[in-house]
């Protein structure tokens, strides 16, 4: 049974696109004082809705429930800091290309950690539901303490409940850039760099909805709008975005002639 157009149809009928975003994930998505959501991913979500000619409804998700939300059609689309992994590709429709990339890294007090091997036997704060959490326990022998939200996890680091905060390098870099984390550093390179992908229900991946998204994201890389957002939100420029921009840029030089 081909239901690959189902989501797009119901979005158009409804006039509303429901996008799952994380919510406490500065600067990709976070609350403003009036309670509304804002951030890079929120902007992206609004662009998708705009190009479909519908309204965007933002739904707060957690890393623990986002896949269920999508499966149960609570949301039409995830733009919520989700890694593109093999096992997730079995559960949801991962949209290529990714719109961002990052890898697991550490934030720790200046001088507390020098290398990945230093975490052995030490308490490391993390966030529940993050895919690579298992790594730091199995590969480096750390004692993982996973909290429900970033706030609690980072607070635990700040108040000395653990020696490092194990999370995305891009998020850590963003935090360090705010100036609120004086005395802390990101002492190690990311273990790997993994693209973040938007996701749609599995059946939609190769349907119209999936293709539209794929095209939109390709366009954001190509026209540099992702790099512009990175600048707008005061983030350190990353090599991955630059590479993507370069490799996906359409060679228009022939028009100059």
């Amino acid at each position, binding site marked *: 049974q081909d239901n690959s157009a189902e989501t797009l149809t119901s979005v158009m009928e409804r006039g509303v696109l429901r996008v799952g975003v994380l919510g406490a994930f500065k600067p990709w998505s976070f609350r403003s004082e009036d309670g509304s959501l804002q951030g890079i991913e929120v902007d992206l979500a609004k662009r998708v809705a705009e190009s479909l000619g519908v309204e965007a409804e933002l739904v707060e998700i957690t890393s*623990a429930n986002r896949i269920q939300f999508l499966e149960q059609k609570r949301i039409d689309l995830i733009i919520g800091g989700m890694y593109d992994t093999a096992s997730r590709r079995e559960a949801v429709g991962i949209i290529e290309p990714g719109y961002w990339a990052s890898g697991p890294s550490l934030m720790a007090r200046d001088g507390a950690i020098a290398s990945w091997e230093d975490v052995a036997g030490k308490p490391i704060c993390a966030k529940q539901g993050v895919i690579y959490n*298992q790594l730091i326990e199995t590969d480096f022998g750390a004692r993982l303490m*996973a*909290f429900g939200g970033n706030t609690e996890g980072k607070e*635990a680091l700040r*108040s000395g409940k653990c020696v490092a905060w194990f999370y995305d390098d891009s998020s850590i870099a963003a935090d360090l850039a705010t100036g609120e984390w004086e005395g802390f550093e990101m002492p190690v390179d990311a273990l790997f760099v993994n693209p973040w992908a938007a996701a749609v229900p599995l059946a939609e991946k190769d349907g119209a909805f999936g293709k539209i998204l794929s095209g939109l994201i390709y366009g954001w890389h190509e026209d540099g709008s992702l790099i512009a957002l990175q600048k707008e939100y005061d983030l350190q420029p990353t090599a991955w975005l630059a590479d993507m921009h370069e490799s996906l840029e359409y060679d228009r030089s022939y028009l100059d002639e």
Partner: protein
Amino acid sequence: MFEFIAPLFLALQKATGLNFSPFYNEYDFSRLMTGVQTSLLLIVCVLIVSLIVGLLGAAAQRSQFRVLRFLVAAYIAMFRNTPPVVQLLFFYFGLGALTPQVDMGGWYEPMISSFGWAVIALGIFGGSYNVEIFRAGIEAVPETTLEASEALAFSPVQTFIHVTMPLALRFSLPALASNLISLAKTTSIAYVIAVPEMTYALSGVWNDSLNVGEMMTLLFIYYISVVAVIGAIMGRLEKRLAVPGLGK
């Protein structure tokens, strides 16, 4: 044990799709084991702390010092009228920030771990109920029985030790049993401060393996068994202390 059951559950997963990963995946198995151990230890510690707090509180309530009685009343009012999850977060993050750190040889760890704070916060929370339960037990001792011991020339202390307490304990037991059971269930909220108890452990598993239904079933079975065990222990205690013709 693990070697023995792993193939069984692997086969089960292949055949039916039922994914009990902790029974065949070594990492998930270790998470489950940590979960069970931590949860049981947490329950035992919390119950003990709550009993001690309850007894001390009930004793303080009978004190001659107004200030002390007032403090106990304030303590009960505070802990019975605010959400336990927030209490836990307040203790862990709020007060936890003010406690000293210990040198672990190169790095520092808080003197009180998240497990420790869970024991303290939940113990104090549950204790606020126990105070009232013990007090009700003491009040249930008939005044006439106390009069009789008075008429027999018992001193107030003798009356308290030989008549009031033994009777109050027996009267408190049923209410105590149900409070301890509900406290044991409440330990699951230690999840929010990353104490690796059962709920935390299994939610970790279903986050990675997406086997929510199976892990949820395990959780229900686990807690219902724990409750049954506590109920049985309290029932046994009640039977041990039962006196013919007293109560029902």
